[in-house]
């Protein structure tokens, strides 16, 4: 392994600028003559807009423009879209109620925006927004997904009966029913997958800018996928044709999915820039982020597992009500359907699976993909069910899992729910996790904890996810409105250094380092001579962006293909100059060599020859600059076992995670340090969901957890230091053999953590606990169990 090649823990080259305050974040940007936008937002969860009076705001100092939804309509600006069509049980398309960027007739959640005030300064914009007078007629609100379909519940959209966006199913219902009728044991659970607020460290922000000379529009925005934003803003919102619109996503401070979507504020800032003929800037306050960033999860699920007398899984039956919030966010529909139910086989050979999902509207912030997106919810269903089944049947949880795992020699393995797993070795991950976690020593540790008055528990989560999203034809057949390939370009400059362009977007992932490592390894160019460019639609050919742990598998693979083209062209140039046959040219470590001789040129010399083609192959284009697009063959399937060990103080209910082990199969690992960081961060996210985070609305739809004073984030002192191991089976579905690592922790950790908490409390009679399992909730559960005993 070279110092900067594949497999080396290279320090992240971007960190120096981030840590020294030299990053280029959006709120730091100052455009000439920029103005500031402030949005007028609904304080009500549901209300009719009787009137909007902007007259006093219009005459306030510094106010340049005030716009409402009617202005957008008059200009032909289309509503916000949802880009994935779901076909329901009856063959009907999902309900897609209108989602205007500025509400016109009704507001449907607290924070719903209905007007924008643009002023010389931010304070003047806020002053103006306060002066906009809105006449609301309050309407009743529906908040909880489990109540949404009740006949007595108010309708979020008058044209969507029962608040039902879709009633969708996957799997063989009859076969599953038959499996249950033959079962020796059935385990059933009712679980809630708690609603989460994404809380990227950098709030969303945008600057729209119009150039009257060229008639070009530019949107600077905190996006995970600037090209998709341009496509949607152009093709659907109709703000400008794609060739007149540039979208730039500079350094972006985290996304976790929440910056995939095309939101109202960014759309309005871009449109308004042309109206006021000046740049329009908006940065979300943290309160706005809580109210308007698409939230995650929010499922209510009943699930049943049928087993035979030997503990073999026969069938799985799952019903889920998924909260969409008040409107459909950009990819909301696919999260509780194709990103969820398709993973319900987990690591197991369950032959019959049936899942139906009712996606419902409520008067809450829209819900969409958040780190893991559907796969954490699926893993939580399966792994809570399996753990409970083990407890009920008296089989060790590890043993029950092992009996049902897909065997290491069974690939490709076709599940009953669409996915075909390409490779894996789940037993190896389980064994390695148990070894690292010293599972055999647990009984002694539990006894020792008991002597101190503490309750100790251990929990497993054997997860699988589908990453490397995704083969375009496959997702197209399932309703996706886009292809999910990725583009890459490698441009040698005449002096031999390299600029790499990728359609992936780095907002914390470290692509500037890992992609440079891939190129350094493949082309033998020194790491420090490679720069990675991303996040600008005028620089990069196209890109589908970063989400679903896809960047290495799809974006990285596009660069491998581009590198292959560079080598092919370089071979022609070298053969000509070295006066050899092209077939005799070998390429290794950055050198083109005539086989069996010491005649060689390095790739920098070849690049120079390509740009100064004095001695050059006839008919070959000068320059060394290759573009490639990669459309993956299949998803990749990272999998592994996480083991969490907790200690509970029964006097207070407080939980401490005393050990946390993560053994993952991510396929080929490009940079172990960055991967370990992703595991650690993902586990923090998952532990956050399990023990701390919970987004709450009151019965009127007011957001109770609207700030960090009440929304509890995982912090350094309650986040475990993860013991990390790998059992890598390289993916056959992409040329790098990578699988993706960004979401695994968030997918695996909730079930591992809750299984550990329940294990600690099982003997007291506590057999389930809802997330987040706070000290308060654990204390209440212990007390209720004692009272019932």
């Amino acid at each position, binding site marked *: 392994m070279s110092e900067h090649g594949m497999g080396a823990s290279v320090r992240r080259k971007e960190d120096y600028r981030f840590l020294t305050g030299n990053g280029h974040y959006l709120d730091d940007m100052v455009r000439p003559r920029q103005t500031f936008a402030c949005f007028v937002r609904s304080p009500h969860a549901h209300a009719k807009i009787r009137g909007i009076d902007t007259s006093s705001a219009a005459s306030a100092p510094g106010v340049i423009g005030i716009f409402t939804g009617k202005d957008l309509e008059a200009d032909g600006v289309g509503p916000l879209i949802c880009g994935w069509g779901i076909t329901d049980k009856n063959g009907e398309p999902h309900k897609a109620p209108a989602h205007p960027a500025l509400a016109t007739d009704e507001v449907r959640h607290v924070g719903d925006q209905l007007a924008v005030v643009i002023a010389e300064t931010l304070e003047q914009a806020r002053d103006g927004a306060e002066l906009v007078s809105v006449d609301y007629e309050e309407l009743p609100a529906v908040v909880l997904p489990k109540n949404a379909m009740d006949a007595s519940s108010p309708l979020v959209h008058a044209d969507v009966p029962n608040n039902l966006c879709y009633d969708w199913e996957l799997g063989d219902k009859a076969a599953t029913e038959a499996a249950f009728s033959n079962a020796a044991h059935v385990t059933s659970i009712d679980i809630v997958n708690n609603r989460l607020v994404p809380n990227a460290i950098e709030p969303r922000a945008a600057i729209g800018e119009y150039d009257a000379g060229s008639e070009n529009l530019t949107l600077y925005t905190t996006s995970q996928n600037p090209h998709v934003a341009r496509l949607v803003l152009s093709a659907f919102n109709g703000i400008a044709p794609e060739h007149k619109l540039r979208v730039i996503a500079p350094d972006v401070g985290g996304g976790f999915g929440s910056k995939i979507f095309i939101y109202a504020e960014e759309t309005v800032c871009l449109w308004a820039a042309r109206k006021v003929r000046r740049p329009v800037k908006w940065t979300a306050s943290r309160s706005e982020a809580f109210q308007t960033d698409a939230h995650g999860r929010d499922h209510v699920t009943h699930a049943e597992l049928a087993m035979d007398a030997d503990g073999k899984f026969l069938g799985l039956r799952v019903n889920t009500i998924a909260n969409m919030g008040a409107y459909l966010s950009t990819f909301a529909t696919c999260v509780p359907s194709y990103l969820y139910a398709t993973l319900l086989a987990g690591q197991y050979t369950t032959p019959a699976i049936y899942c139906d999902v009712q996606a419902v509207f409520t008067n809450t912030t829209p819900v969409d993909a958040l780190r893991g997106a559907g796969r954490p919810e699926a893993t939580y269903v399966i792994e809570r069910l399996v753990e409970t089944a083990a407890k009920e049947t008296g089989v060790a949880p590890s043993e029950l899992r092992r009996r049902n795992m897909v065997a290491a020699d069974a690939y490709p393995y076709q599940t009953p729910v669409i996915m075909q797993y390409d490779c894996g070795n789940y037993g190896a991950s389980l064994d390695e996790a148990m070894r690292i976690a010293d599972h055999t020593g647990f009984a002694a540790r539990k006894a020792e904890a008991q002597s101190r008055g503490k309750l100790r528990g251990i929990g497993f989560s054997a997860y699988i996810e589908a990453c490397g999203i995704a083969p375009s034809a496959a997702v197209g057949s399932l309703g996706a409105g886009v292809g999910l390939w990725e583009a890459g370009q490698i441009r040698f400059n005449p002096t031999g250094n390299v600029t790499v362009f990728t359609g992936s977007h780095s907002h914390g992932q470290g692509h500037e380092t890992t992609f440079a490592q891939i190129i350094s390894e493949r082309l033998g160019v020194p790491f420090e001579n490679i720069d990675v460019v991303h996040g600008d639609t005028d620089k990069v050919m196209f890109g589908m962006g970063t989400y679903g742990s896809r960047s290495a598998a799809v974006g990285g693979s596009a660069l491998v293909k581009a590198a292959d083209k560079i080598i092919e062209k370089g071979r022609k140039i070298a053969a000509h100059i070295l006066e050899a046959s092209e077939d005799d040219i070998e390429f290794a470590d950055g050198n083109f060599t005539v086989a069996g001789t010491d005649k060689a040129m390095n790739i920098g010399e070849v690049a120079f020859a390509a740009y100064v083609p004095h001695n050059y192959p006839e008919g070959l284009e000068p320059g060394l600059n290759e573009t490639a697009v990669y459309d993956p063959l299949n998803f990749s399937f990272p999998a592994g076992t996480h083991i969490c060990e907790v200690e509970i103080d029964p006097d207070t209910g407080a939980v401490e995670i005393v050990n946390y082990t993560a053994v993952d199969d991510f396929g080929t690992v490009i940079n172990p340090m960055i991967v370990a960081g992703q595991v650690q961060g993902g586990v923090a996210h998952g532990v956050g969901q399990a023990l*701390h985070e919970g987004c*709450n609305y009151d019965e009127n739809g007011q957001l*109770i957890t609207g700030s*960090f004073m*009440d929304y509890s984030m995982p912090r350094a002192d309650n986040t475990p230091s993860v013991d990390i191991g790998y059992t890598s089976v390289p993916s056959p579905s992409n040329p790098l053999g990578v699988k993706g690592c960004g979401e695994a922790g968030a997918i695996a950790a909730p079930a591992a953590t809750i299984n550990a908490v329940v294990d600690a409390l099982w003997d007291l009679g506590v057999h389930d606990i809802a997330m987040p399992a706070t*000290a*308060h909730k654990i*204390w209440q559960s212990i007390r209720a169990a004692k009272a019932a005993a």
Partner: protein
Amino acid sequence: MYDFEYQRPASLADAITALKSAEDGKLLAGGHTLIPTLKQRLARPSDLIDLSGIAELRGIKSEGGTITVGATTSHAEVTESDAVKSAIPALAELAGMIGDPQVRHCGTIGGSIANNDPAADYPGALLGLGATIVTDSREITADDFFLGLFETALEETEIITAVKFPVPQAANYQKFAQPASRFSLVGAFVAKTGGGVRVAITGAGQEGVFRVPEMEAALSANFSPDAISGITVSDGNLNTDIHASAEYRAHLIGVMVGRAVTACG
């Protein structure tokens, strides 16, 4: 934030004059409650009178069995003070549990107690130790100072100058933090003094910090956790919110007071 006049007087006398002459003046100490309130446009004072330029309000003195902490002394200064650490280690520890390092280097004792947030830590120490609040015009005992939610005995234009803490025989503070804000969900301050045991609870009460006379009597007779095992604080006056029911808070009071007694040794 709305516009206001900013003043930074150099003496207490100037601060009083500024406060009295302002239409709706607010004193700015560490600003950890006031500045967020202003940023959210929830307050609109005419003047902000910054106390950070007044040297006489800052610092820690130890004399004759009393620790005197100046009103604008930061939490970090209290937690790091050798005088406090040797005389009343529980006070130094409590100050070290407030917020995070940034908060502790800005937030001040005077600002905290003048605000009297029901979940703040300092009111527990003042009431538990039987401290005296010194203002520009008088001295007020902690028992008379904390009147209710965000309410104190301070007059409109009165300025806290210092807090005087009598040195106890032993003291300890046990804090069970609200998981999101890390304010106290229940904070129990127990002090063993010549005049008997004092028990003050912060974070839990609907009216802010309060004493628990039954526990004080029991502990004065027998300073051991067993002495309070049968005593429950009624949950009738305790807070219920998304983080804890009144019942849970009542239970935690027993647990935290017991732990504080044990820690007093």
